[in-house]
């Protein structure tokens, strides 16, 4: 049995050894799973918002898409990963309260900025399961880079 590690809101973790990285209850939050195919190192973040320029005080920067992806990629490169062998899968960004546009925009922007940020590092996004109106839980297996996604009232699938 692989060790399971929770990635909570505002966190990211890089797993050097085979691990299940899990994010439970992604609504508008977004998790990017980055997998380096040559070193088998995997990393997951759980971001809440896309725009770190809104911060009025010193806050946990890993709540933000841009900052978390940046830190995650940097740490992976430090461990010997290369962006040419890194691929990403992106999950979340749902609209939990239909018709609450201000909240729904948070999810949409989260997805957009996470993908932009990954692309800016030349990391290919090979799968995504984003948007919609239902939350998601995900389990990222860093032995092979596979991700299992589940939603309430829906089928569990592997991506």
């Amino acid at each position, binding site marked *: 049995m692989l060790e399971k590690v929770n990635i909570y809101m*505002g966190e990211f973790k890089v797993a050097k050894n085979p691990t299940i990285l899990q994010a439970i209850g992604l*609504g508008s939050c977004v998790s990017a799973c980055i997998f380096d195919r040559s070193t088998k190192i995997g990393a997951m973040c759980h971001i809440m918002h896309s725009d770190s320029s809104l911060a009025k*005080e010193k806050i946990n920067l890993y709540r933000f898409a841009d900052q978390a992806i940046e830190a995650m990629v940097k740490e992976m490169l430090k461990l010997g990963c290369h962006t040419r062998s890194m691929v990403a899968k992106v999950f979340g960004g749902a609209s939990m309260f239909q018709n609450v546009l201000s909240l729904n925009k948070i999810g949409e922007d989260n997805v957009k900025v996470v993908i932009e940020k990954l692309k800016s590092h030349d990391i290919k996004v090979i799968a995504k399961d984003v948007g919609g109106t239902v939350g998601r839980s995900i389990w990222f297996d860093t032995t092979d880079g596979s991700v299992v996604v589940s939603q309430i009232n829906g089928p569990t699938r592997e991506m």
Partner: protein
Amino acid sequence: MTKMKLSEEEIRILGNIADIGAKNASKYLSVMTKKKFSVSIPWVSLYPYEEIPQTVGKPSSIVTSVYMKVEGEVKGAIIVIFPEKEALFMADLLLDKKSSTELDDMAKSALTEAAGNILANAYLNAISDKLKIKLTDSIPHLATDMLNAVLGGVLAQFACKSENALIFKNNFKIGKKKINGHAFILFDPDSFDIIKNKIKNARKG
């Protein structure tokens, strides 16, 4: 860029206001349901956003929640959360039914009405009254999903601005049955200075 801070005195004053709001809410709900509602002593705190879901339950637990935006001189949000079973129990109470197994449209609208219009307004009235702040509520919205999923966006809209949330929280009970319903009021960090000023004025008055 100093962090938001509250003195013990300010927390006490906000706690009193939350207490009045909670008592009003339980009074209205008791009248509506003909059952004795009681509300816990409110918890007022500056609390890290990331840790707020854990004060309610497990991230994956299924909840029904009602969300409302607070507008006016001070901005914020109210979210009322019921675990799955308790949402059904609550809806049954409101509609004078028994042992429903799913939340139909009637149940959803009854819950939205009770949580949104009654509970939320009780708190907002207490705040406007004691701090002399003009507040308006907005249309309540209901969602059923995992706890973390419904809370994520609600928290994110403010978590992008400050490290800690200025939060009021209550749990309530019905008769002897403990209903793990939770009501949160979160304030927009942009409104923090106004709230502090209003507290100062309220103390003078």
